[in-house]
C-alpha cells in the first residue's frame, strides 16, 4: 500500500530525512519509534504534502500512485490522513462546519455527491459518541480551547469520518489520560481493515498494548535503522535507543 524508497528531504539547508525506505502493506499497522528529533514528524509531513519540505530524492507511492506529484489536499483526498502531533486551532469555525467541509471535499474529489445534512449529522453523532466527543465540543470552534486530550480525540474523530486508506498517527497517545488512551485506541482499532494501513508514531509501548502493531520500525537520523515485530518495541522499552543512534551516523 505505502512504499517509500530512498527518501531524502530537507528544510532550508537542514537535511532531515536521509535515505529512508519503508513499506507498509494493506491492512498492516506499522509502529515507528525513535529518539526525539530523529525525523518522525517530518516523515509524516512529507508523506502528507506539507510545503516547507523539499524532497531531493526518492519516491512515495500510495497504491502505486506517486504522492509527491500532488498537493496536500489532493493527497488527503487520495486517502492520506495525518492525526497531528499538535492539532491546529481554527477560530470562529464551528467544528461541525469544518467536518462537513472536509467530508464534502472528499466526496467531491471522489466523484460522489455531497452528504445530505441529516445523514452527515447522524454519522458525526455516532462517531462522536464512540470517541466520547461531546455535542458541545462539536459546536465550538475547531480545537479552540480544547484540552490536549480533547484535541487528540478530535483528530481520531476526523479520521473515522474521512475513512482514509492510510492513517498516520503522530504521538496520538501524548496528552491522553488512561481512560482516553483506551477510548482512542478502541476508535483506531475499530478502523482497522484489510484495505487500510496505519503508521503509528509513538514513544511508548503503552499505546502499542492497545493498538497492536504488525511491524515495528526504529527511526534514527532520518532513516529506518531496524525493523522487527512487536517484540522490538518491548526491547526498546528496556534498552533505549543507544544501540541505534550511533549506527546511523
Amino acid at each position, binding site marked *: 500500500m505505502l512504499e517509500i524508497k530512498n527518501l531524502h528531504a530537507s528544510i532550508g539547508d537542514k537535511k532531515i530525512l536521509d535515505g529512508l525506505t519503508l513499506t507498509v502493506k494493506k491492512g498492516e499497522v506499522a509502529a515507528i519509534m525513535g529518539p526525539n528529533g530523529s525525523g518522525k514528524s517530518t516523515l509524516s509531513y512529507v508523506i502528507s504534502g506539507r510545503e516547507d519540505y523539499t524532497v531531493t530524492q526518492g519516491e512515495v507511492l500510495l497504491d502505486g500512485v506517486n504522492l509527491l506529484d500532488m498537493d496536500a*489536499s489532493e493527497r488527503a483526498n487520495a486517502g492520506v490522513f495525518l492525526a497531528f502531533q499538535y492539532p491546529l486551532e481554527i477560530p470562529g469555525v464551528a467544528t461541525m462546519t469544518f467536518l462537513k467541509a*472536509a467530508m464534502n471535499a472528499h466526496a467531491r474529489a471522489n466523484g460522489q455527491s455531497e452528504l445530505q445534512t441529516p445523514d452527515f449529522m447522524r454519522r458525526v453523532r455516532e462517531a462522536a459518541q464512540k470517541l466520547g466527543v461531546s455535542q458541545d465540543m462539536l459546536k465550538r470552534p475547531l480545537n479552540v480551547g480544547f484540552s490536549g486530550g480533547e484535541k487528540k480525540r478530535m483528530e481520531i474523530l476526523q479520521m473515522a469520518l474521512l475513512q482514509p486508506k492510510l492513517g498516520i498517527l503522530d504521538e496520538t497517545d501524548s496528552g491522553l489520560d488512561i481512560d482516553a488512551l483506551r477510548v482512542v485506541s478502541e476508535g483506531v482499532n475499530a478502523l482497522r481493515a484489510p484495505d487500510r494501513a496505519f503508521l503509528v508514531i509513538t514513544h511508548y509501548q503503552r499505546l502499542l498494548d492497545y493498538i497492536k502493531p504488525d511491524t515495528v520500525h526504529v527511526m534514527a537520523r532520518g532513516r529506518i535503522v531496524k525493523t522487527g515485530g512487536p517484540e522490538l518495541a518491548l526491547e526498546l522499552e528496556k534498552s533505549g535507543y543507544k544501540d541505534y543512534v550511533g549506527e546511523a551516523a
Partner: protein
Amino acid sequence: MAAVQETVDRVKAIDVDAYKYGFVTDIESELAPKGLNEDIVRFISARKNEPEWLTQWRLDAYRRWLTMREPTWARVHYKPIDFQDLHYYAAPKSTPGPKSLDEVDPELLRTYEKLGIPLREQELLAGVQTSKVAVDAVFDSVSVATTFKAELAKAGVIFCPISEAVHSHPELVQKYLGSVVPVTDNFYATLNSAVFSDGSFVYIPPGVRCPMELSTYFRINEKKTGQFERTLIIADKGSYVSYLEGCTAPQRDENQLHAAVVELIALDDAEIKYSTVQNWYPGDAEGRGGIYNFVTKRGDCRGPRSKISWTQVETGSAITWKYPSCILRGDESRGEFYSIAISNGYQQVDSGTKMIHLGKNTTSRIISKGISAGRSNNTYRGQVSAHRKASGARNFTNCDSLLIGHDCGAHTVPYIESKNATAVFEHEATTSKISEDQLFYCMQRGLSAEEATALIVNGFVRDVLQQLPMEFAVEAQKLISISLEGSVG
C-alpha cells in the same frame, strides 16, 4: 454550514478577473451633458420637478462645494478626479419616473434578476423564504421600482424613492434632509447635496415595527456617470426598522465615481439597523478601473434610548472611503458598528466609524475585521469621543486585521478623545496572518488552498456575520470568498 460549502464552490467556479456582476445592460438612457455648473444642478432639479426650496438647497450646496477641496487625509492614492468629465444625471429612457413593476422596462427587470434581486413580489411569495424583503432598486440615477408598497402602507410605513417623497411627503423631507449630514459637511457630501440623483426614503411612524426588511439595490450602468444617491431614514418614537443595501456596477476600464449620503434619524426609543453589502466593481487584476466609493453615512440617535447599528461587508470598489458614524445625542442611546472590510488586488480601503457621545450614559460598540490580500491596503480609522456632558459614556472597540500574503498592508488609526472623566473607552486591536500551519491542516483534510483560506477567513469574521440578517449573511459569505479569489497559491 451549507453556506460555507456554497462559498467554497463559488470560489472554485469563479475566475480572478471575472467580476460576476460586470455586465452592461443595453438600455437607451437620457444623459445630462458632461460637466457640472449651476445649469446642470437646475437641470437635475427640473427633471425631478422639484419644489423651489430644494432647487435652492442644491444650488447653495453647489456654491459651497466650489469653495471646498478634496480631503487628503485618508490613506488612499488616486489621480485627481476631473469633475467636469462626468455625467451627473443618467436615467433609463423608458422610465421617466417610478412606476408599478409591470411598467418597468423588462430589460431592467432582467438586469436585476441577473443580480439575484427578487424584484417581483410573486417570486418572493412563491419562494421558500419565510421572511419578506421590500426592495427599492436604483438604476444609475433613477429609482425604478419599489416592491411591497401597499403592504407597507397598511402599517403606515413610507418606503419610496426620495424623488417621490419630495412630492408626497415634503414636510418630512424638508424637516430631516441635511439634518444629520449638513450641506457643508465634507467635499463629497456637499457635492452629493448639489447633484444627488435618487435614493430611498423611509419613514416609520411612532410605535411601528416595520413588518419586513427594507432593501435598496444600487447599480451603476452608464459610462462616465457619477452616482450620487441620497438615502433618508427616519424612525419615529418607539419604532424599529431593518434596512439592507446592496450595490453592483459593470466592469469598465475607467474609474467611476460613487458619492452617496445616507442619513438616519432615530427618535426616542427607536431602533434602526442598517446593513450594507458593498460589492462595487473593484477593478481588474492589474488595478485598472473600479469604483471610487466616497460615501458619507451618519446616524443621529436623536431621542433618548434610541439605537442605531451599522453593519457593513465591504468587498468591492477600487477605493473605499467610508465611515458610517453615530451621533449619540439622546441620553442612554446606543451606537453600533460591525464591519468586515476585505481588500485584494490593488484595492484601497480606508474605512471605520465615528462614535460621538453627547448624551448621558450613552454606549457604543465597534467590531471591525479587516482582511487584506494581494497588493491591497486596508486602513481602519475610528474616532470615539465623549462630550463634556456625556457622563457615563462607554465604548468598546475591537479591531482585528488579517493579512494574506506578503504584499498587502493593514493599518489601524484610532482617535480617542474624552472630555468627561467618567467616560470609559476600551480598545483592543490585533493583527494576524493566516498561518501556513492552519492552511496545511485544512488542506490535509482535503480542502483546497482557496477553500481553506475562505474557511479561515469566514471564521475570522464570524462575530460580524452574525449581525447580518440571515439571507444577507449567506450572500456576504459568498462575496467574501469571491473577493479573496486569487489571493493564495
